[in-house]
């Protein structure tokens, strides 16, 4: 596979990259881990005039404090998967990161790159939506913070301006009360392939095992990575009885707007959604109660 001709700038530092993007706008594409852009270049589906390489820049550390967790955009999937700060906060990130692609992809691909790509089947997108994360987007014009739930606008389309880079992902602090548990499950046809359906759940249970709060992120089940706030509202404040779970699953199934592609039909995705949601919800609840779970959908 041979890309079309492009110019290449290896950014000297983050601000340099922002300056180049400001100068070239839509004609430039940033290159971080290259796990989406490089195949697109090789298939000639992307033909930017300029590639700005930021993959080698210092990654920074994942930091947790009273304001939550900050994940630098250049964090590799494999780093996130093993990051103790994240592991302590939620199992959801490890579930999601460890099922992306294969080990080589996970050592190259970045969190920021995956979000900016906005693949509807993105594992990170679903996981971070469930966690109500925000992205800090920077340009020479300044920085702004966008909730991920408003960030994805359609397939491969985001609120990111052409001169902006995702600098950081921010996960809000965990609630001080209640027990939390997170889980991500996906159906994939084969190790390393894209999700056919993926559901992320971050759950907070109170002492009576009522759902104090829940975040739901969906992958490959609609035109863009999305939450389901109606289902979240239905469960919030209710005990997680079998009936409540069944109601939530049925509602989620009715509300899906799945698509057909070479991997699966919309009809099948509509059937998978509630099943995967139920299993993810049970895993999250199990974890909230301190139990071990199998991080495979089946």
């Amino acid at each position, binding site marked *: 596979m041979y890309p079309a*001709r492009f110019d290449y700038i290896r950014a000297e530092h983050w601000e340099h990259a922002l300056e180049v993007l400001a100068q070239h706008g839509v004609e430039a594409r940033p290159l971080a881990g290259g796990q989406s852009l490089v195949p697109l270049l090789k298939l000639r589906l992307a033909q930017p005039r300029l590639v700005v390489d930021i993959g080698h820049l210092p990654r920074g550390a994942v930091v947790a404090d009273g304001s939550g967790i900050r994940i630098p955009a250049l964090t590799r999937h494999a780093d996130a998967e093993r990051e103790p700060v994240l592991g302590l906060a939620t199992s959801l990130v490890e579930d999601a990161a460890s099922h992306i692609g294969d080990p080589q992809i996970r050592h190259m691909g970045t969190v920021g790159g995956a979000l900016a790509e906005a693949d509807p089947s993105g594992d990170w997108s679903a996981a971070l939506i469930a966690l109500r994360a925000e992205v800090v987007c920077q340009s020479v014009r300044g920085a702004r913070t966008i909730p991920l739930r408003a960030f994805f606008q359609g397939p491969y389309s985001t609120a990111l301006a052409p001169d902006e880079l995702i600098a950081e992902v921010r996960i809000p602090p965990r609630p001080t009360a209640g027990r939390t548990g997170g889980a991500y499950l996906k159906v994939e046809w084969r190790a390393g392939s894209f999700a056919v359906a993926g559901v992320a759940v971050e759950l907070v249970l109170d002492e009576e095992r009522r759902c104090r709060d829940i975040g739901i992120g969906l992958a490959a089940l609609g035109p863009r990575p999305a939450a389901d706030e109606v289902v979240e509202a239905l469960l919030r404040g209710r005990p997680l009885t079998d009936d409540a779970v069944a109601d939530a699953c049925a509602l989620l199934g009715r509300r899906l707007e799945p698509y057909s592609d070479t991997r699966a039909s919309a009809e099948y995705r509509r059937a998978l959604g509630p*099943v995967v949601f139920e299993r993810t919800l049970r895993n999250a609840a199990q974890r909230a109660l301190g139990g071990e779970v199998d991080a495979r*959908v089946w």
Partner: protein
Amino acid sequence: MKAGVVHIERKAGTERREDEEILAARVRYAADEDPPGTLHAAIYRSPYAHARIRGVDLTRALGLPGVVYGLTARTLPPYAKPMSPFPFQTTDPFLQGNPTIKFFPHYGLASDKVRFVGEPVAVIVAEDRYVAEDALELIDAEYDPLPAVVDEELALTPESPVVYEGWGDNVMLRFRVAGGDADRAFAAADMVLREKIKSHRFAATPIEPRAILARYDPGSHTLDLRDSTQIPHVIATVLEASLDIPHLKVRVRSSPVGGGFGTKWGFYPEEWLMAVLAVAVRRPVRWVELRREHLVASSHAREQTHFIEMALTRDGRILGIRDRILANAGAAYPQGAAATIITTAMFVPGAYKVEHYEATVLGVATNKAPFGAHRGFGKAEAAYVIERMMDIAAGALGLDPAEIRYRNFIPPQEFPYVSATGARYDSGNYAEALRRCLDLLEHDRWRAEQRRRRERGVPGPLLGIGFALALEPSSATRMNSYNAGYFSVTMRVDPGGRVFVFSSGNDEGQGHATAAAQLLQQELGVEPDSVVYVEGDSLLCPYGSGSYSSRFSIVGTSAVIGAARRLRAKILRIASYLLRRPQEDLAVEAGGVVSRSTGERITLRDVARAAYLRLWELPPDEDPGLDVAYHYRDPNVGLVVDRNGRVAMFSSYPYTADGAVVEIDPDTGLLRILRYVSVHDCGRVLNEAIVVGQHLGALAHGIGGALYEELPYDAGGQPLHQTFVDYLVPTAREIPDIILDHLMTPNPFTPAGLKGTGETGTVSPPPVFANAVEDALRPLGVKVRALPLRPERIWRYMRTASGQGG
């Protein structure tokens, strides 16, 4: 994946000789060849499945800096003749009109029409591949799109578009084979089953794609092709016949090849094109296939629809079979398609004693990629159909699927067995293989567990058990084709005592050098380090048809043994003279010859020095030199087809009895393999590491075909799986631990008792999993009608059965 229960002793000195260089990346594959001055070719391929070409204008492309040359069908140089047909040479009266095969003059570039997406239309040569690819985007081609036909049944209807107008219809090949009296058998039947069974299109996907470096030396008229092919001599011959150049000599060097699996058994447009280009530009021209090109435009396989009828007695004995087979041959420059399709018709009866059989097969041209060779070559399709039918028949008669097989297997005492299609099965013990398979599978325990779950209505995973006896006839010989039943070896000992073996084989990873060295240790008493094994060079090596059909272990090893014995006779004659001992007293061992009675010994080097340097030490009537040529003629194949299409086309009949226990998630259709057993018989095992490696690799390949891999097209003829993102080759995680066992019934027709190895494993998993899934869904009354068994397909079966449509 790991293998358990391997009942073979590991012998010292059988380690593969090839691996160290491969693993250390010191081996140079065709794509590593890039001498100074090389030009790079990129091929402009049809975006349409079927269209008339109005014009292809290269003006803008040729104007791009760095572009050196370009060709379309209209601008071919005068020496470019049509590609010589392969493997059958022409429609020949020798074939007695059965099969009939249609040919057409094919120039490697489409001229009047394009017939599949990916068909070469033009080629650009440039200083580097990037520029060549850029130039493709500047080609101005105009087409009038035509309706496409992709389905083999629709292609036979009168309304169908015709792929090759000159043929009048889409029938590329017609063949009929009949033995016994099928009409009488059906008249006597208690029950007749009629089924439509389809096997799906997938492909071999070797790690190394195709790659060619062509060079032409006008001084010596030599065209040198470094080509990742399985058949170097044949490519040299067909290229010479396809180029009108006086005094032309073609040399094809293939070795090493990074996997072939049948894909590189063929004469491709790209080989012809690179040869034409190298002569035109007088510089080396290189083309390395892109994975996307490989998936849309090399060759595909397996796609067939069978309309099969089986006549049975009440107690499950097969009286006769009739089959009507439609093979979707794609846009067919008749390559592997014809031979594959004929092969399927020959082997639908499989491992069963079917005395009355009749099959007609049509090779149907469609607007899909050409059908070619693929590990399992036609036999996989046949095995799939018969092994599905055995389960369906068992169900219809209320018999156990193992029991109906035991009642119909060809019994061990009837070997060699001549089938209704004239095939001569060498040896086997099918019932024993299936019994061992079911034992290792713990069949009875799982069957009891299945009964328990069903009787108690246990919710949760659905348990299924499936098995199959897959026959994989090996070492094909076809009348008046480039696949004749022989194998050539020349062998010489040099004055230093080293043994040089020049073989007509071709190694794509099998380990021929290792196997040959082992045989020479047995036959000549030489250490592996003193053996130099050469193949894959049409100039250096004796003529032959390369690698296909698992033939090296059958005819290749036999030729090595034959040559070694011929050489040994001369060694002993010379040694007898040197040692003054009768030949009967001498033995070859440990790099020399020893007298059994006196213990006196001389080295092979002493013998060789007598033959080359010290002729006074030779017997007076002995020729100097120490080399031989040997051509092994396969004794177990026939060369003439009778008027009913019967012929012994294959030499040896390895098989495997495989079984699987699976669980299915009723909510998602996801499938889990709980246990997989393979009991394999490839005759005597010469090298355990090679056999186990080949068989496990083949099983992974077969599991891929059963559960993951497919090459679907939309109705307009667009291929839907063009990269490995969509075409899912299984990874280590998908392949279960395999419980492997070997049964060894020696092949009585080869000196070493070997059969073919390396293909049976691709044949067994599709019927095993189809049977297992059908078994798991039996309470729903579902019939598995299509592969691969991706979860959505299984989910649809369950949904349809539970009346929710779909």
